[in-house]
């Protein structure tokens, strides 16, 4: 006999909490600054600013879904940006520069992260913390601690321009990546395996999943997403800054957590993480509008991370046994 199980508040909470937070934020800022905040132009701006957060968060998702973390995304973003810019400055065609400097190089960084974690069996926290520092150092050395300018204008226009003068390219890129990741996590076997691995690595292994390969794949995806964020960043700024993205791993982690991903691994959905990233964008934009400096934004972000995880503990998926 089959019965439909009754939905509890917890079920609703884990399904809609992210959307609810987004709406709440929009309402709060709209009430505080109705004129400045509530305009189409500002909404487009928010979404454009959110593009980098979306890309970083889509990658970070794969670190956290394993029950781990990737702290190196911010440095990866800066380093790949500098490498891509340097390649373009030395005369490479932008497409080739993106392919080598962003995609391939980003994948290599992720492969290194994943291999180190697999070989040493250390927590991803340790390895990626170390890598964060190593990659940032490399970025400064490679750029002589100066911004790399002279990026091809065609590249800037096609990556950071606006389609028909309205739709910003960064958000198109971010959403395309997000759709690919949503497809990957929900429709492919490898994506399914990653959830199993994050839920319980031992039982995943005993079920026949190649745990090391899948872990490697997760960190490759994380770094490639971060590299794409690096690409968007240099296109928007018109130059590659060696200190780009400093501290952005906090935004990425916050987006993933606010997006309802369990910090203990195995549970989470990419589309909610995308909303989580937009929430970060709204908060940064809104606080600007209200006239608070970026220092307050950091405080807000920190509080939000703690709050989101606390609420998840009580109402979310991990509150169940």
């Amino acid at each position, binding site marked *: 006999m089959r019965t439909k199980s009754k939905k509890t508040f917890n079920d609703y909470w884990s399904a809609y909490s992210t959307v609810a937070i987004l709406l709440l934020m929009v309402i709060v800022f709209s009430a505080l600054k109705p004129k400045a905040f509530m305009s189409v132009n500002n909404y487009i701006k928010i979404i454009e600013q959110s593009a980098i957060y979306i890309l970083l968060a889509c990658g970070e998702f794969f670190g956290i879904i394993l029950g781990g973390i990737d702290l190196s995304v911010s440095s990866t973003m800066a380093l790949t940006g500098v490498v891509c810019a340097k390649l373009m400055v030395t005369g490479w065609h932008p497409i080739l520069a993106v392919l080598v400097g962003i995609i391939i190089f980003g994948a290599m960084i992720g492969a290194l992260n994943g291999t180190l974690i697999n070989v040493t069996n250390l927590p991803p926290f340790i390895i990626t913390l170390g890598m964060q520092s190593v990659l940032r150092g490399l970025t400064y050395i490679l750029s002589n601690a100066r911004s790399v300018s002279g990026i091809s204008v065609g590249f800037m226009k096609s990556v950071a321009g606006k389609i028909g003068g309205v739709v910003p390219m960064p958000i198109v890129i971010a959403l395309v990546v997000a759709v690919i990741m949503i497809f990957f996590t929900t429709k492919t*076997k490898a994506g*399914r395996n990653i959830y199993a691995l994050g839920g319980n690595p031992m039982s995943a292994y005993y079920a026949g*999943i*190649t745990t090391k390969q899948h872990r490697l794949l997760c960190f490759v995806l994380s770094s490639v997403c971060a590299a794409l964020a690096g690409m968007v960043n240099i296109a928007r700024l018109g130059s590659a800054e060696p200190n780009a993205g400093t501290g952005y791993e906090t935004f990425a982690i916050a987006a993933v957590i606010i997006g309802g991903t369990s910090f203990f691994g195995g549970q989470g959905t990419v589309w909610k993480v995308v909303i989580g990233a937009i929430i970060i964008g709204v908060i940064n934009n809104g606080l600007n509008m209200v006239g608070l400096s970026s220092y307050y934004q950091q405080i807000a972000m920190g509080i939000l991370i703690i709050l989101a995880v606390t609420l998840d503990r009580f109402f979310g998926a991990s509150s169940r046994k």
Partner: protein
Amino acid sequence: MSLVEMKHITKTFPGVIALNDISFEVQPGETHILLGENGAGKSTLMKILSGAYEPTQGTLVANGIEYKRFTPKLSQENGISIIYQELSVINEISIQENIFVGKMVTKKVCGIPVIDKAYMRKRTQEVLEEVGLKRDPSEMVGSLSISEKQMVEIAKAVAFDAKVIIMDEPTSSLAQEEIQHLVSIVERLKSQGRGIVFISHKLDEVLTVGDRVTVLKDGTYVGTYNIRDMDEDKLVRLMVGREIKGTYLKEADEEYPDETILEVENLTRKDGKARNISFSLKKGEILGFSGLVGAGRTETMEAIFGAAKKKSGTIRLYGEELKINNTYDALCAGIALVTENRRETGFAPFFSIKKNIAQALELKESSFGGMTGLISPAQEKKVAEEQEKAMQIKCASLDQVITELSGGNQQKVILGRWMASNPKVIIFDEPTKGIDVGTKSEIYKLMRQLARQGIGVLVVSSELPEILSTCDRILVMGEGQIKGEFTSANANEENLVRAATS
């Protein structure tokens, strides 16, 4: 007067009677052996004595006072000290600190209490001498051998004047001369008027160390006897003497082709936990692996399944040599392992029943380490429904999360997962652990059915009745090696226990 007495103790867990009317007492100056198979209830009884569990019925008496239950504190105050098989010393601190951990002695300096290191050092030296451990109190425990760590634990008991010292399988990881030393220390503690409770499987040891023995069997009390009236034969009979209910053996007239499914030759694990394992599995038969916990049975299966590294040996399936480097290779080759611990190594905890069932087939049908391909919801649904029927899984919906099911139904989901992947050999490791009686017999029937279909069935079980009633042939393992082989015709509980404890 006895040091401590347990009167008519009964302990029930939901659905299980762990202990049924057990009485047990310890006299000053005696070594009292607690004997019984795995699962007989020895640990549960000792946990009641240490205050970890509350008895459902019965009382405890110490120092003339009758208690409904012990708390850990009360147990300690009555001089009861337990030395667990998994030693509980802290490696990162010194011997002296280990002995006084949580009970630091202080003295007052200018009215402020400070740790009295000098006293603790002196006291540690005394008790170390008493247990014959020639080490400085300041040495780190991490640098000691297992035997020495055990001595530190005994010294700790002595330091706080324990009257009853319980040793849970203290010799299981000791070398011969270390056992000699332990026995001499036990004798000395006894002569000081302490009572020793000694839990062991090794019959020869039991006969040399013990004064009295209490035998438990399936949570019931068999009796308490003087060791001098006992010999190995009598002990074995007391431990296992029970009726076997319901057998799932093949009928006598069933004939199977003389075809070998699986052949394992000289299999040795890299870590040595299983060595020189050779056996073959014929079509239609169920092959059992008996032995004590830690005998290397699970370890052997892990090596076959690719979950542990092999040093040497070959595995052939239908005559073809297999190259198995990980569990994915095993899955693709058609070897399935139903693990002992469902929660830790069994299922994907956040997955629905459907996703859990479809998992193995989906992996097997993909390539490149199980990373390619898309999920087919239609196939997933079909496979899950088939297995729900075949395994008679009781659930509200296949979209329920697996953790909402009972242990027996979870086990059926795991079985369904493997069956969906069409295995050629399926290994059951303690398949009925923590499972209710009804589901148990369903699983036995399933095993026989699989064997009839020509799927190779290996069973690891510590429960003798289970292995005797389900298997056609039984290999007994001990210390990582195969110690004996029996057919269903000549196997009985006595000779299995004897082979395992020899």
